[in-house]
């Protein structure tokens, strides 16, 4: 298998902040808004460098989304940020009408997504945001896996004229994809070639899938690892091609099973290429307080659980 090296743990939100600052320098039409979490979202470099293009909305997310839509339809490229919980469910109707239905050029920037938000607990740990956003027509949904990829994705979405949901996280996690990579919206990345099972993963679970691949290799199982950074539009051709070869699938994500990447993949496979499939995700329960890594283990979102799921999927092959 291809070997990936962690160049040092980094938080994906910092990748977002760095990407935003970089496109802010290049494009005067890029504007940003935040709802009293500028430091947490690492938007402070942009806010400091471009004070005329940064709008502090205060703790008023609904208004922030509306103002973002107004700026966008006037020709601006708008990045609106808050915690994932507050910039999706809390403002779903605003996003639905003023962003998705009106097809405005607003990037919904969601930090602290999933359970790795940690100690603040379930009120702040959203695990249904991908589902909410992928259901909206016109909305692109992206969940990059590490710092470098998040930075590249942030830069890439500025060139797409339309609504985007960009999801990233709080804790430092392995940074292993190439620096200054080119990010292609909607293109699945094959990180490792295999023949017995495909491990689909998104966000923080991509690194775990790579670790699972190693563990499986030690047991003589050849796993293919695919980084699905874009959940919508889904790269169905790459997905179908991979399972046609391997005949079994696992999907790992820091999200509910309902509404997640796994559900999207399962829908495609059911229609076009049914194979045994297992889900490594949270099943219909809220999160809780705890340290991020501890929570991931406790909720079964790690390499060991991916290994178990892979073996189960393979055993179900006929």
């Amino acid at each position, binding site marked *: 298998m291809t070997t990936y090296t962690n160049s040092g743990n980094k938080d994906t939100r910092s990748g977002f902040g760095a990407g935003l600052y970089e496109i802010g320098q290049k494009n005067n039409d890029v504007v940003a808004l935040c709802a009293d979490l500028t430091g947490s979202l690492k938007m402070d470099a942009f806010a400091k460098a471009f004070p005329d293009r940064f709008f502090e909305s205060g703790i008023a997310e609904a*208004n922030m989304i*509306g*103002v973002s839509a107004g*700026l966008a339809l006037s020709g601006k490229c708008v990045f609106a940020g808050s915690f994932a919980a507050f910039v999706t469910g809390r403002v779903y109707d605003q996003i639905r009408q*003023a962003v998705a239905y009106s097809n405005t050029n607003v990037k919904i920037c969601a930090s602290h997504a999933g359970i790795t938000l940690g100690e603040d607990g379930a009120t702040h740990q959203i695990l249904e945001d991908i589902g909410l956003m992928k259901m909206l027509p016109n909305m692109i949904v992206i969940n990059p896996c590490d710092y470098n990829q998040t930075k590249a994705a942030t830069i890439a979405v500025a060139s797409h004229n339309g609504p985007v949901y960009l999801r990233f996280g709080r804790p430092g996690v392995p940074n292993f994809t190439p620096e200054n990579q080119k990010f292609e919206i909607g293109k699945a990345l094959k990180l490792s070639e295999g023949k017995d099972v495909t491990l689909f993963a998104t966000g923080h679970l991509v690194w775990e899938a790579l670790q699972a691949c190693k563990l499986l290799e030690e047991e003589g199982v050849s796993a293919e690892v695919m980084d699905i950074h874009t959940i919508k539009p889904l790269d169905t051709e790459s997905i179908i091609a991979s399972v046609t070869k391997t005949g079994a699938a696992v999907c790992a994500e820091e999200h509910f099973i309902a509404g997640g990447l796994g559900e999207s993949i399962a829908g495609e496979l059911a229609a076009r290429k049914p194979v045994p499939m297992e889900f490594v995700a949270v099943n219909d329960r809220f999160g809780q307080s705890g340290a991020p890594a501890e929570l991931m283990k406790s909720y079964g979102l790690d390499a060991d659980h991916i290994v178990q799921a892979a073996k189960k999927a393979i055993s179900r092959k006929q």
Partner: protein
Amino acid sequence: MQDIQQLKDTAVQVRRDIIRMVTLAQSGHPGGSLSSTDFMTALFFKELNSSAQRWTKEGKGNDMFFLSAGHISPMFYSILARAGYFPVKELATFRKLGSRLQGHPSVEMHLPGVHCASGSLGQGLSVAIGAALAKRANQDPNYVYVLVGDGESEEGQIWEAAMFAAHNKVDNLIAITDWNRQQIDGNVDEVAGLGDLEQKWRAFGWSVIVADGHDFDSILDAYSRAKKESKEKNRPVMILMKTCMGKGVDFMEGTCEWHGKAPKPEQADKALAQLKETLGDF
């Protein structure tokens, strides 16, 4: 640009259009469409620095208008059509399958005059503020206008937007409330009272102008004062247009009954008998 008699003639034709559109569709919202007709006619035919020929979705170099209370689309569509934004005959397609004239305004089929979808209430003020901020950033001296309903002002987002606009000294924004005092479930004061609406907007840091929304002198004076005051005081302006729900059709006036109900053909005849055809029906 129209003089006051022309504005009156246009307004009465708009009211005919409203009744005929909702009757044809057998659905839609005549009450608030009729209460807002006069000041909206004045806005589009006298006040707005824009035109059907110049209009773009991005609005650069033009005044922009946003309808936050999207349900009063019959009034909006009639005024746009009468102002030349699209053919008057298209009014007959209102709420029909495949029409650009959706029940609530949409940009999906690129209807000229509409910048953003509305219908789910409370959002248009925020969107208008965003457009006003973009004008400021682009050094575009034009204004952004937005119409909200009084019942709509029960939405919390309106007050988030109010605070934000005052805090950011958005002085190229003129908001209008159609203060007709009626909403679906009854009189606004009885359903979920807004209290002292004028003092509320002042307390939120806005300039407030109260006008008679059916008197063209009062309406035009309010628009002219609003532009002046926004720049003098460096803040957004709210014009509270005192209006009568269902204005122009005696049996629809002053009641919530006709908020979202279409007249039967015989009721429509009774209504149209009170509204002289001035510009030719669609």
